[in-house]
């Protein structure tokens, strides 16, 4: 597959998209882990939800 004289523009576009999507996925995954860790720490310190259910309960 030849990309012609403007190959650098095409490749940069696809790399930019891949980078931004990877950053979004990474940010969401890291944020999720950090939030679950904070919820677990709060529960271990003795704070409980009014419903009595675990704050990290996803079911």
């Amino acid at each position, binding site marked *: 597959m030849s990309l*012609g004289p403007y190959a650098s523009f*095409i490749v940069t*576009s696809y790399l930019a*998209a891949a980078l931004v999507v990877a950053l*979004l996925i990474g940010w969401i995954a890291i944020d999720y882990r950090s*939030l679950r860790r904070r*919820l677990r720490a*709060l529960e271990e310190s003795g704070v409980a*939800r009014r419903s009595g259910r675990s704050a990290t309960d*996803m079911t």
Partner: protein
Amino acid sequence: MTLIDLANPTRFLSLTARLLPFLAAATTILLLVGLYLSAAVPDDYQQGATVKIMFIHVPNAWLSMFVWAVMSASALGTLVWRHPLADVAAKAAAPIGASFTFLALVTGSLWGRPMWGTYWEWDARLTSVLILFLMYLGLMALWRAVEDPTRAARAAAVLTLVGAVNLPIIKFSVDWWNTLHQPASVFRMGGPTLDRAFLIPLLVMALAFTLLFITLHVAAMRNEILRRRVRSLQMMQARAASNDMSAASTASQPA
């Protein structure tokens, strides 16, 4: 499970736990198919291989507007129905919409340089999309600046609905003004002007990016619900600590 059940954040979390693996798998498969089809298209007779940038640029440009439309619907949910998940949905969508808009601007510039001879031109389409990007950033700053989530939600909802005026301006800017950007070639009266060889990979990529948005949005909404749980537990902890302190100070006072 009915739609009204989803108004309960706990039920929504339970649904996301089951839904996310399927959404992620479907997004990955569709993206791989789209990328394969994009790589296999023939060169355009005028643009050559640079036409391949279209398969990244156009889906991101469409989604930049679609995400704002989703946020506008959520804003109505916040202001009119006070749906508990409406502000969660809007807040979670903003960084994703900003990212798609950023990609539309960057890939548009990279496509413009070889085709137009310039990375940037202050024409109506490019400028209105830049304004959309700045509005996303402004909304994200607003949510961070106002500490009370209820007040932040209302202010953000009003700003989102005001900003929705920009959507038809972006869409019709190429018809209303004389712009460097080409007019609509897919969603237009009289049908698409694109050849099927380009149209099919473009639609597959657009569908793949839309699924990507849905997957990321559901995951970001789950995070936002957990963030609000953290906040409410922290407030309960602070209230309990303050009650303990006042009880201790009352006990230590002389009778």
